[in-house]
Every structure is written in structure tokens, then in C-alpha cells.
């Protein structure tokens, strides 16, 4: 059985618009139904052991809600889930102690008037480490996150990046099979972000199962084996990162020309492998299954004008993501 198996998870939040006597009384007397926001709508997936699974989505897509449900900190209205073979509802305490959760601003749990070492000391014993083991373990995790020379520093004197490393150190005090990382590199400088990304790769090597919620698409593309793109609580697409790009992504040929004529645009658009042509000043952006057909397009362009430059690229996950979200939003408007 996979370490994470979830099926038809639905989560709704009651919308609160401040205190309103009339409305609250009506809701209390069941004369009026409260307003709900569907944060997750029948979400299903499984994550294999040693896999890095990305949850992508814009703000408010339901990423944090999903992470909290996987951690057993939030109860879904519908659906079932098993985390590390423990039932999410019946064995909630075992689910909670099977996962290590890292929130983006999670360092707020640290007391600003205590050194990093003294802060970590409490969380070490909370994880069941014996007093005799605490010092060694804290030194180990501080070394892993590169804070070994900062153990006597106070959190208030650390930069955002170092605070996130401190948070990561807390997360590593106990050895658990599943890591739930919610925006681990947000508000963190590029150097520290790179460190955290390397670290996530190391986790995979150690056989840990990682769920990474992020809106950093480049990061997801770099790290994740599979990705679920979430929007308004629903999964739009779920597949291997490469497969998503191949299935939904486009190849883009950019041709810089001396001049562009309507006839040239018409003829390029008429090719069966071309999906879309965009004209920007003297640049043509040609979308579609282009890679194998570059010579045909170039020959056509030469018939009309001189070519100044040619560039070919595959759309990134970012392009795929934007395309999917835009299509979904358009469909909603049409509805």
C-alpha cells in the first residue's frame, strides 16, 4: 500500500462575514443555511514511497487545506484517506505522528528570547528524544541545515532564510516517513532556497515520501516526480511532470523577420501542425507540434522575407499551468 492514499476528499469552510445578529439567529434556528466555500472537491490521489509529489495551484487553490488534511490536522467532510497505512479519521493520532509538516512561516513557534538550541531542546523531548540524546541530535540537525555555528543565536537576529532553516531543523528532529512541505522556499533568498531544494532531493534519496505544495512552478518542475495542479479545490491535471508538459505543453518557435505580411501569417497558420500564431512587431510566435517541422516553416518564411533570427523552446510548466488555469477560468465564465 502507498504511504498516501486519498479518495474523494471534500472540504468546505463556513464563510464568516463578521457578526450579524439577524443572520446568525436565522442560521441557529435553521431558517437559513450558512454560506460555505468548497476548499477541496472530491480530490483523489496516491503517493508512492520515495516519491516527491507536487501540489501546484494559485493562491486559494486549496493547497494548505490539503496539506493539513494529510497531516491529520483538519477533518474532511467527505472521502477517506490512509496515511502510512493509518486511517485518517480513526487513527488520527498515528497519522499525525507519521508525518513531518513544514509550514512556510512555521518559525513563529520559536521563542525569540531563547537561543536556537534552547528552542529546539523542548521540541526534541516533545518528539520523545531522551535528555541524554538531545544535544547530539540538535547538533546533527543544525549541521544538516547549515546552522551549526548559530546554535546560540536568537531567532530574532536571524534573516527569513535562516529562520526557515531553523524551522526545517525542528522538522528534522524526528525521523518520520512522510514530509509535508507547504511553500518551503517562500520568502527565502535564492541561496537558502537552493539549499532547501537540495535537501528535498536528499530526502528522496533517503526513501522519504515528500508532498510539496508550492506555487513556484520552476521549483516543482525541478523537484517533483508527479504533479497535481489544483484550482478552486479541484484537481485539473495529475500526472508525471514530463507527461504533463508533453500532453498539455506546447512547442514555441519564435522567428524574427525583416517584415511580416498578412499572407505569411495566413500560410503559416494553415499548416496542420500549427495551433496558434501570434504576431508581435516583427516577431512571429508559432505554437504547436513544431520541433519536427522547423525546416518547412523556415522555408515558407524565406519565400516572403529575410529571417533575422530563430529560437525554439518547449513551454515550461509555468506555461502549462497558466494555460490550464486560464482555460478553467474561461469555462467558468462561459457557464
Amino acid at each position: 500500500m502507498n504511504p498516501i492514499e486519498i479518495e474523494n476528499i471534500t472540504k468546505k469552510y463556513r464563510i464568516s462575514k463578521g457578526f450579524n445578529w439577524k443572520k446568525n439567529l436565522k442560521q441557529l434556528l435553521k431558517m437559513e443555511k450558512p454560506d460555505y466555500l468548497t476548499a477541496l472537491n472530491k480530490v483523489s490521489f496516491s503517493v508512492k514511497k520515495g516519491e516527491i509529489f507536487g501540489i501546484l495551484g494559485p493562491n486559494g487553490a486549496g493547497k494548505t487545506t490539503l496539506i493539513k488534511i494529510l497531516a491529520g490536522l483538519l477533518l474532511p467532510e467527505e472521502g477517506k484517506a490512509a496515511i502510512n497505512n493509518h486511517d485518517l479519521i480513526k487513527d488520527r493520532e498515528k497519522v499525525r505522528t507519521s508525518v513531518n509538516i513544514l509550514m512556510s512561516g512555521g518559525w513563529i513557534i520559536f521563542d525569540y528570547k531563547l537561543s536556537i538550541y534552547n528552542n529546539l531542546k523542548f521540541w526534541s523531548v516533545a518528539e520523545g528524544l531522551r535528555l541524554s540524546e538531545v544535544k547530539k541530535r540538535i547538533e546533527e540537525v543544525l549541521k544538516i541545515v547549515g546552522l551549526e555555528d548559530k546554535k546560540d543565536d536568537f531567532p530574532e537576529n536571524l534573516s527569513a532564510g535562516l529562520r526557515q532553516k531553523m524551522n526545517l531543523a525542528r522538522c528534522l528532529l524526528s525521523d518520520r516517513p512522510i514530509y509535508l512541505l507547504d511553500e518551503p522556499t517562500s520568502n527565502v533568498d535564492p541561496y537558502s532556497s537552493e539549499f532547501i531544494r537540495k535537501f528535498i532531493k536528499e530526502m528522496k534519496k533517503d526513501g522519504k515520501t515528500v508532498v510539496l505544495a508550492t506555487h513556484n512552478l520552476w521549483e516543482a518542475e525541478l523537484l517533483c516526480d508527479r504533479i497535481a495542479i489544483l484550482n478552486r479545490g479541484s484537481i485539473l491535471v495529475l500526472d508525471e511532470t514530463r507527461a504533463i508538459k508533453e500532453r498539455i505543453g506546447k512547442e514555441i518557435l519564435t522567428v524574427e523577420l525583416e517584415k511580416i505580411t498578412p499572407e505569411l501569417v495566413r500560410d503559416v497558420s494553415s499548416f496542420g501542425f500549427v495551433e496558434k500564431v501570434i504576431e508581435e512587431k516583427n516577431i512571429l510566435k508559432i505554437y504547436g507540434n513544431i520541433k519536427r517541422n522547423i525546416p518547412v516553416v523556415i522555408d515558407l518564411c524565406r519565400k516572403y522575407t529575410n529571417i533575422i533570427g530563430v529560437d525554439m523552446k518547449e513551454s515550461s510548466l509555468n506555461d502549462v499551468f497558466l494555460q490550464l488555469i486560464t482555460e478553467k477560468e474561461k469555462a467558468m465564465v462561459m457557464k
Partner: protein
Amino acid sequence: MKHALSSLEKLGVIWVYLCRRAKLWFRFKISFIFSFVAMFVTIAIFYFINVFVGEIPEYGNYFAFVLIGLAINQYMQTTLSIYLGTMRSMYWSNWLEIILTSPMRLKTFFSSVMTWTYLYATMNVAFYFIIGIFVFGAKFTFPATAWIVIPILILLIISLSGIGLISASMFMLANAKGDIEPIGWGVATISGLVAGVYFPPKYLPAPVQLISKILPQTYAIDAIRRILLNGEGISSPSIQLTIVYLIAFSIILLPIGMFMFNAGIRKAEKEGTLARWM
């Protein structure tokens, strides 16, 4: 990977938490010094009130009478506020979620917080008595059965814990996330007036005395005074009756408090309100 802590590991958590709080306490040196200055001034105020109040029928010297009231009030206020205060601080600092995902569990964390808080309250009480006796000359009778004060105090703490837990449950159940939660605040405030902390409840108007009779602290304060000022012991019917009342209050209030507190946590798990910011 541990799912729960052993008893020894739980003791380790309590010990490290105590050390942590002590470090923080000493770190804020001005606050540390001024808390003692404030207690000294409070004792001095009541000493001078005693100069013109003098004797109180049934209990004798007012200064000794009020010192006992102040001491028990420390435990009362601590018990009524500790659960809500801890809940509030865990919510705003995101500790609650992290504690729930650790094998430590909430019970061990609350035990740690309570151990520190009651040690702190006991130290304050000791300070009240030391200053009261050695600086201002308060006189107490310490009969051989004075030990009975300890079980009475423990029963008082258990029964008030029920109210404290109900108050804490309001944080989640009724979204009482402001500075004042009506139940705990109401009981704590009314106690000062009607439970006999500063004066015997018999001087209150008859309807207000009825309120004092439904509060466990009224009985505990009276019994402890009878022991320490009048030398009464376990053989005294009024002391025995107090113990019975306190056991009854504990049996009724504590399960209600625990039920409501757990209901509050369950509601927060459903609504996603275990933490404020994340």
C-alpha cells in the same frame, strides 16, 4: 517514529519545559524584580488597611485573614485562566498544530504548563507569607492537622479546573478569541467580590450571598482560614462538609469541562481553526 511518549519521556518534557520557562523568567530581569515589588506593595496596602479594620469576628486579625485570601486567590486566578491562556497562546503562535503532530500530545503539554504555573503561584504565596509574617508580623496558628490545607487546595484546583476548561472551550466553541472570555472572566471577577477573598461573604446582601454559595472557592477559603487562624482540624464538621462540597463540585464540573474542551478541539479540527496564521 514514535506515536506516544513513555512516562519517563513525559517527565523529561515537563523538566525541559520548566527549565525553558525559568530561563525566560530570569531573562526579563526588570519584570522579575517588579513582580516582587508589586507583591510587597500589595501586602503593605493590606497591612495598613488592617490598622483601622482591626479584628474580624470568628477569624481574628484582618491582616492574617486577608493574606490567606490573597494566597488562595493566586491559585484560583491561575486555575481559572491557565487553560484559556494556554489555548490562546498555542493558537496565536501555531504551537497547537505542532503539539498535535508530536507524540507529546496536549495532556503532557498542559501538565508542563500547569507544573510551571502552580510552582510560580506557590512561590508567590510563599513570598506573601514570608513578608506577611517576618516583615509585617502576621500571626497564624499551624495546628498538627494543617496538612489538610493541601488536599483542600488540590480539590479547589480540580473543581475550578472544570470552570477553567469550560472557559477555554469557549475559545473554539464560541469563537471567544478576544481578550475577555465571559465565563472565566465572570467567575474570576465575581470571586473577588463574593467568595470571601477580602472580607467574609456574610457582610454581602442576602441575594449576593446566594452567588457565593454556588462557588467552590467560597467553601475552600473559609475552611483554610478556619484551619490556619482558628486551629480547626479534620474533626471539625464544617471542614468535613467543605471537603464533601469540593468533591461534589469536582465530580460535576471537571467532566463537563473536559467534555467541552475536547468538543472545542474537535470543532477546530473541522473548521481548520487550530492555528491563526497557517
